[in-house]
């Protein structure tokens, strides 16, 4: 039951950030297609935004690890 909880925690927790990173990548690609000269700025900003999104998945991951090994 605890392992099930761990699996659910990371599985459900990765769902939202996955969608979020997908949307971010979509936006970045579109921006890149429209304005290829702004590559550096787009890349940096995309990285920062992805970092914010990914942090949520990381929280879920830590909860999952703690559930699984404690």
């Amino acid at each position, binding site marked *: 039951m605890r392992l099930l909880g761990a699996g659910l925690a990371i599985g459900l927790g990765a769902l939202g950030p996955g969608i979020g990173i997908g949307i971010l990548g979509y936006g970045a690609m579109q921006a890149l297609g429209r304005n290829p000269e702004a590559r550096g700025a787009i890349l940096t900003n995309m990285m*920062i935004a992805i970092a914010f999104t990914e942090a949520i998945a990381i929280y879920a991951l830590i909860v999952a690890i703690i559930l699984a090994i404690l």
Partner: protein
Amino acid sequence: MGLKSKVAIAVLVVFLLIVIGGLFFPVPQPEVHLSANYGGPSPEPFYKLGPIYITNTFIAAWLSIIVLIGFFFFATRKMKLVPKGLQNLAEYIIEMMLNFVEGVTSKENGRKFFPIVATIFLYVLMNAWMGLLPFFNVIGTFHTGTSDTLLQTLAHTIFPALSPSLGQYSGPIIDVPLFRPANTDINLPLMLALVSFFSVEYWGITSLSLRHYLGRFLRFQQLLQGLKQLVRGKIKPALSAILFGILDVFVGVLESLAEFVRILSFTFRLFGNMTAGEILLLMIAFLSPWMIGVIFYGLEAFLGFVQAFIFAVLTLVFATMAVTPHESEH
């Protein structure tokens, strides 16, 4: 030879690598520790320097500090106007980072933020990349024992005629490694996050005035104005001003909360990513001991760079936000 047969051969090679490597050269099931370990028998910590516990992440952290200091020490001996060798490499790294930092913020702000941002970047990067070296997680105290592996169970279920010990690991199993990647200890990301937080606040307070800087978090102006109007007897504008004033106070509370949540988010982002990478590498080595892990080593090298970059760039962006006067106080 067509493309299809090439793909088929590649798949076959990978399959053989997994099966032969897994069955005849098994790897023990990894033990996952979230906290750093002391050396020696567990009740009585072995490495202890006065009140300080010398954990394995502590050793790794100091190792990367020594490597960084050594590199820049030897690079800056006998400096020449036309750089050569080590000095050239060091200058290239520093110049690239300085250009990037100055590109994100302004020129003089870039000069001010550069030392801390660059140090965070290099330190996190060095910790992440050093953790991929082969002596990490390998040297340490061990006990001899056996460990079941996944392929062993699979092979025994599919072919019951096989001897049950085929694919079972027997030999030394590491209990406490002497080296462990420093980023996988939550104290190091927490320390870096605190350094980043306090330097951002320091830069914010010194470049704006203290009153100006705190004005972002303590937003009572509009509320006080509304109360003043209420005292003067202008009921209608006073009510709307008070309403928006309360909203403004709430925004300030949220802003200051967001400021502190950064510490938490910085810490867990780095710690979680690095720990997850570490566990991924261990698990891949356990599942298929031959060759496949190399791909994931490449992935981890890239992720280490990305995490170092993100930590440094977020510090830079927060610092830039802190030194920029905000729009509510024209």
